[in-house]
C-alpha cells in the first residue's frame, strides 16, 4: 500500500528533557492505531531497558503511522523520536535533517528551557515547519497562557498556532495530527533521481548485522541494489528495506520522502555513520547531503575492571557495545595504580554513565571509572603538538610551551532571581560573560564562553542546586584556547595514584589540592593502618590529610546457630569491597576517583 508523496509527512518531536516528548509520541501511535492500546508498553519508543528506567531517550527511533485526516485523506506520517540530552545533540541534528517538520513540546509549568531553544535553533537551521505544543496542561501548576506568550516572544511563533495538550490524558492529540498534515510540507524529492538517503541512526542486530535508519530524500532504494556510503566510500548490497510500524516490516522499496531502514550485511555501525549519505553505486548522486560531521568524543575517562581477571571480558564487551554505539571510542591504557584497562572517549557525562552502566549490567562486569577529563592540546618546546586525554600523560612541564583546552559557549536559561548565582558560579568556573537577555515569563538567557573542563566538573549539578532546579543548560564546542594549567598529583600512603591526577588552573591549584585531600579523607574507608593522603604540584606537597586506622570490627557473640548469619554478614561486607580497588595496600572506592569532579 503506497502513499502518494503529497500525503507523506516526516516529523520529529523536539523538547527539553522531561517535557513529555516520548509520552506524546506514544499518544500519537495510539491515536493513529499504529499500536493497539493493549500492546502499549509505557513508552514504546524507548527500547533499551535503561531508557525506560531513566525515562530518557538515548537512541533515535522511527515509526510510520497512517492517519485519516478530517480532509478525508489517509496520510503517511513518519515520526522520528530523538534523544533529548545535550550529549546526543548531533544525533538530534541528523534526525531533524531527515524531517520536514517538528512538533515542539514545551512543558506548561516549566516553560522554555535551554534545550528548547537549542532544539528550535536546530530545527530552524534545517528549515523545518514547527508545530508548537504546550504539554502537561492538566498539571495544577501549569500556566499554558504564559508559556504560549513565551513561545511567541522568545521563539517567534504566533501564539494562535500553539496547541494545548496533555499527552498523559490524550488531550490535543488530534489537533496535533491535523496541524501536522496541514502545516508540514510534503517531501519534494524525485523518486527517479539518483539515490540520496540520509542515515540518522544505526543499530546492531545480532542476526542481521547493522540496521541502518534512513530517510530517502531523492531516488528510490530497493533490495538487490549496490549502495555506497558517500563519506566512507564503502559499498554494500542491500538485502532488505523496510519501515517501522513500529516493529521492522520489509517493503518492496523506499522512495523519495519515505523513512525506513536498510539491511545490507554491514558488520559494524562505523560503516553506517549517522549523517552519512547512502547513494546508488551504479548511479551515484553528484554530492552527499550537507551537514555530515565526524562525531568526536568530548570527555575521556579510564575504565578498569576491579578484578584484573575481567580485562579480557571488558575488552570483548567494549567491542560489542561499540558495534551499536559509533560515538564510543577506546584504547588500551595501563595505570600503575589500577592495572590494565581502557581509556574511553564519550560524547558527554551522560553518555559515559550509560556506557559504564551497560557494561556492568549487560556484561556482568564490575568496573572502576576514573574521573572524566577533556582532551588538552599541548604545544611542546620542540614545536610538536600532542593531544593529552589523560592528566597523568601530561609531558614534563619543562618541555611544555603551552597548553590549550577545549572551550564551549554555554547557554543558561534561568528565572531572573537566580541570575546572580549563575553569574557567580560561571565566574568561579573561569567563564567569560558574553551576553544576557531578559525574556518574557521572567526568564533570562545568559551566555558564557568557558572551558569544557569546568562544565564536566559538576557545573550542571551546581547550576541546578544554585537555582533550586530551575536553570537549564546547553553548550556547544567552539574551539581551543591557551590556558595556564598545571598537573595536580595525589599520593595515597606515599604512592602516587596516577588515576587521581588532574589538570587544573594554576591559580586554583593549591586550593583544589586541599579540597581534594579533604574529600578523599572522607571517601577512603578506614583501613587496617593509617593512610596519609597528599596532594602535590610538581613534586611539592600542598596538602595532607590522614585516614585513621580502623579501630574495631569484631562480633561479640558467635555460636553454632549464628555461623550462617555471621558468614553471610561477612560475605556481604566483602561483596561491598568488590567496588574497592586495591592500590598497593590501600582499598580505594570508586567515589574517590570521582572526587575531583566536585570540589566546591
Amino acid at each position, binding site marked *: 500500500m503506497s502513499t502518494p508523496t503529497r500525503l507523506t509527512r516526516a516529523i520529529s518531536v523536539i523538547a527539553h528533557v522531561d517535557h513529555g516528548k516520548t509520552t506524546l509520541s506514544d499518544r500519537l501511535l495510539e491515536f493513529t492505531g499504529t499500536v493497539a492500546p493493549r500492546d502499549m508498553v509505557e513508552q514504546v519508543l524507548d527500547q533499551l531497558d535503561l531508557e525506560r528506567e531513566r525515562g530518557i531517550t538515548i537512541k533515535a527511533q522511527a515509526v510510520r503511522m497512517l492517519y485519516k485526516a478530517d480532509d478525508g485523506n489517509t496520510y503517511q506520517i513518519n515520526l522520528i523520536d530523538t534523544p533529548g540530552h545535550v550529549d546526543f545533540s548531533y544525533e538530534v541534528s541528523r534526525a531533524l535533517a531527515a524531517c520536514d517538520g517538528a512538533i515542539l513540546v514545551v512543558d506548561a509549568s516549566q516553560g522554555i528551557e535551554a534545550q528548547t531553544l537549542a532544539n528550535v535553533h536546530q530545527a530552524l537551521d534545517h528549515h523545518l515547519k514547527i508545530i508548537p505544543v504546550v504539554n502537561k496542561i492538566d498539571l495544577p501548576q501549569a500556566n499554558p497562557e504564559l508559556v504560549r506568550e513565551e513561545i511567541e516572544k522568545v521563539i517567534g511563533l504566533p501564539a494562535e498556532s500553539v496547541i494545548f495538550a496533555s499527552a498523559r490524558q490524550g488531550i490535543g492529540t488530534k489537533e496535533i495530527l491535523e496541524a501536522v498534515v496541514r502545516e508540514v510540507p510534503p517531501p519534494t524529492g524525485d523518486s527517479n533521481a539518483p539515490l540520496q538517503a540520509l542515515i540518522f541512526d544505526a543499530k546492531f542486530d545480532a542476526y542481521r548485522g547493522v540496521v541502518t535508519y534512513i530517510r530517502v530524500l531523492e531516488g528510490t532504494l530497493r533490495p538487490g541494489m549496490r549502495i555506497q556510503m558517500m563519506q566512507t566510500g564503502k559499498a554494500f548490497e542491500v538485502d532488505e528495506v523496510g519501515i517501522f510500524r513500529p516493529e521492522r516490516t520489509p517493503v518492496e522499496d523506499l522512495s523519495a520522502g519515505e523513512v525506513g531502514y536498510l539491511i545490507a550485511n554491514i558488520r559494524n555501525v562505523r560503516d553506517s555513520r549517522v549523517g552519512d549519505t547512502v547513494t546508488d553505486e551504479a548511479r551515484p548522486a553528484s554530492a552527499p547531503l550537507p551537514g555530515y560531521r565526524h562525531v568526536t568524543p568530548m570527555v575521556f575517562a579510564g575504565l578498569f575492571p576491579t578484578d584484573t581477571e575481567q580485562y579480557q571480558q571488558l575488552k570483548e564487551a567494549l567491542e560489542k557495545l561499540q558495534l551499536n554505539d559509533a560515538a564510543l571510542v577506546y584504547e588500551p591504557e595501563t595505570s600503575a595504580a589500577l592495572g590494565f584497562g581502557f581509556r574511553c572517549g564519550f560524547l558527554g557525562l551522560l553518555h559515559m554513565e550509560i556506557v559504564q552502566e551497560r557494561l556492568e549490567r549487560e556484561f556482568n562486569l564490575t568496573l572502576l571509572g576514573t574521573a572524566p577529563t577533556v582532551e588538552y592540546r599541548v604545544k611542546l618546546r620542540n614545536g610538536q603538538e600532542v593531544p593529552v586525554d589523560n592528566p597523568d600523560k601530561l609531558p614534563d612541564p619543562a618541555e611544555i610551551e603551552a597548553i590549550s583546552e577545549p572551550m564551549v559557549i554555554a547557554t543558561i536559561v534561568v528565572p531572573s532571581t537566580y541570575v546572580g548565582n549563575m553569574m557567580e558560579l560561571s565566574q568561579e568556573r573561569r567563564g567569560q560573560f558574553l551576553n544576557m537577555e531578559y525574556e518574557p515569563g521572567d526568564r533570562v538567557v545568559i551566555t558564557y564562553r568557558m572551558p569544557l573542563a569546568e562544565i564536566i566538573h559538576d557545573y550542571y549539578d551546581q547550576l541546578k542546586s544554585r537555582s533550586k532546579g530551575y536553570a537549564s543548560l546547553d553548550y556547544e564546542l567552539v574551539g581551543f584556547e591557551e590556558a595556564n594549567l598545571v598537573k595536580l598529583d595525589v599520593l595515597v600512603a606515599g604512592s602516587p595514584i596516577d588515576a587521581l591526577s588532574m589538570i587544573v588552573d594554576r591559580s586554583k591549584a593549591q586550593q583544589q589540592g586541599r579540597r581534594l585531600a579533604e574529600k578523599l579523607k572522607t571517601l577512603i574507608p578506614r583501613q587496617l593502618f593509617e593512610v596519609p593522603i597528599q596532594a602535590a604540584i610538581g613534586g611539592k606537597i600542598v596538602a595532607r590529610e590522614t585516614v585513621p586506622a580502623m579501630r574495631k*570490627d569484631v562480633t561479640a557473640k558467635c555460636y553454632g546457630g549464628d555461623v550462617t548469619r555471621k558468614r553471610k554478614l561477612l560475605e556481604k561486607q566483602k561483596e561491598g569491597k568488590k567496588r574497592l580497588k586495591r592500590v598497593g595496600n590501600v582499598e580505594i572506592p570508586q567515589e574517590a576517583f570521582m572526587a575531583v569532579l566536585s570540589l566546591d
Partner: protein
Amino acid sequence: MERIHSLYLHVPFCTWVCKYCDFNAYAVLDGLIAPYVEALTREIDAAADTLPIGPLETVFIGGGTPSLLTTDQVRLLMDHVRAMGLASNAEVTLEANPSNVTGERVDGWLAAGVNRLSIGVQSLRPDALRFLERLHSGSDAIEAVRMARAGGFANVNADLLYGVPGVNLEGWLETLETVLAQGVQHLSAYELTVESQTRLGQEVRTGLVQMPEADDQLEQYWAAVARLEAAGYGHYEISNWSRPGFVCRHNVAAWHYQPYLGCGAGAHSMFRSNDGRTERRWNVKGPHAYIKQAAGSGHAVAGSETLSPERANGEAAMIGVRLLDGTTAARDFPAQRSQLVDAGLLAEADGGVRLTRRGIELANQVGAAFLV
C-alpha cells in the same frame, strides 16, 4: 554422615523481650509452652531415629529463657535426650534468667540431669538494667548465682554485658568484680551490640540512644581481659573465660566446627557428610508454625544449604580463629594467613595461627579474609 555428639535445644519464650535482643525469642506465650515442649520431644525422637547421633557429649538448652519451663518439662526433655544416648560425663547446660532461679528449681534441674547453669546476669547496675529492660535487680542476679552454687551446681556461668550506655569503665569493673566474688567457673562478657532489627537499633538510628565510642568499648574489654587473667580465668575465646577445665565444651565443639543437631523453633543444625561436604539446616522460626509442623511429623526444617569443602573450610577458619589458643583450620589459606600476619592481626602458633591483640579488635576482618 559423621556422627553427631552435640545437641542444642531452643526455647523461644521470654517474659519480656529485651530491646537489644535479636535472638529468636517471643514474649511469653504461656499456653504455648506445653505444646511446644511436646513438639520438641517429637523432633528429638524423630532425629534419634533418622540421624547418626550420640553418645551426646554436650547438650545445651538455650533461648529465649529455658528457665521458664517447669522442672517437669525440663525432665521430660532430658528423658528424650537420654534416649538418644548421653555420655556419662556429658556437659548439660541450661540458660537461666535470674528472676526464675529458686532453690526448688535448682534442685529440679540437677535432678533432671542439668549440670551446668548459665545465668544471664548482664549487669548489676540499676541504671544499666533499666536501660537493658531487664526485669531483675542486681541483687536478684547475685542471689541467683549464689543459690545455683549452694544448691549443687559445680559449673556456673555468668553472662555479662559491657559497653552499655551510661556505664563507665569503673562501673563495669565493679560489676565484674562482684560477679567474680561469687566464684563462678565460667564467664562470658559481651559487648552490647546494636542489631538493626531491634528496638535498640531503632533508638540508635533515630538518635535517641548514643552508643559509646569504639575506644571506650575496647577500654572496657581490655580491662576485663586483664582483670580476669589476674583472677585466674583463662581467656579461651574472644568473649569467653573459664577456670581451668571449665570451658564450655558445647561451644568449643562448634568453634572446632564439629557437627551438631539443633531442635526447636529456628534452631540450626550442622551435619558433615563423609565426602567432606557440610550441610546446614534450619527450622521454621515461629513457635506456632514449629509446633504445628514438629508435633505432626517430628520435622520442622524450613531451609538448608550445602557448603563445598572449600567454603566449609573458610567457615571453619572464620569461627575457629575466635579460639584464642589458635586454630589449624586456616591451613588451606596460606596467602591470607601471611597477609594477616604481615598486617599484625595473626601470629603463628603451634602450626596454626592465633589472633593478636589487634587481631581480636578486628576479628571480623580476619574471619572475612577466609571467605573466598
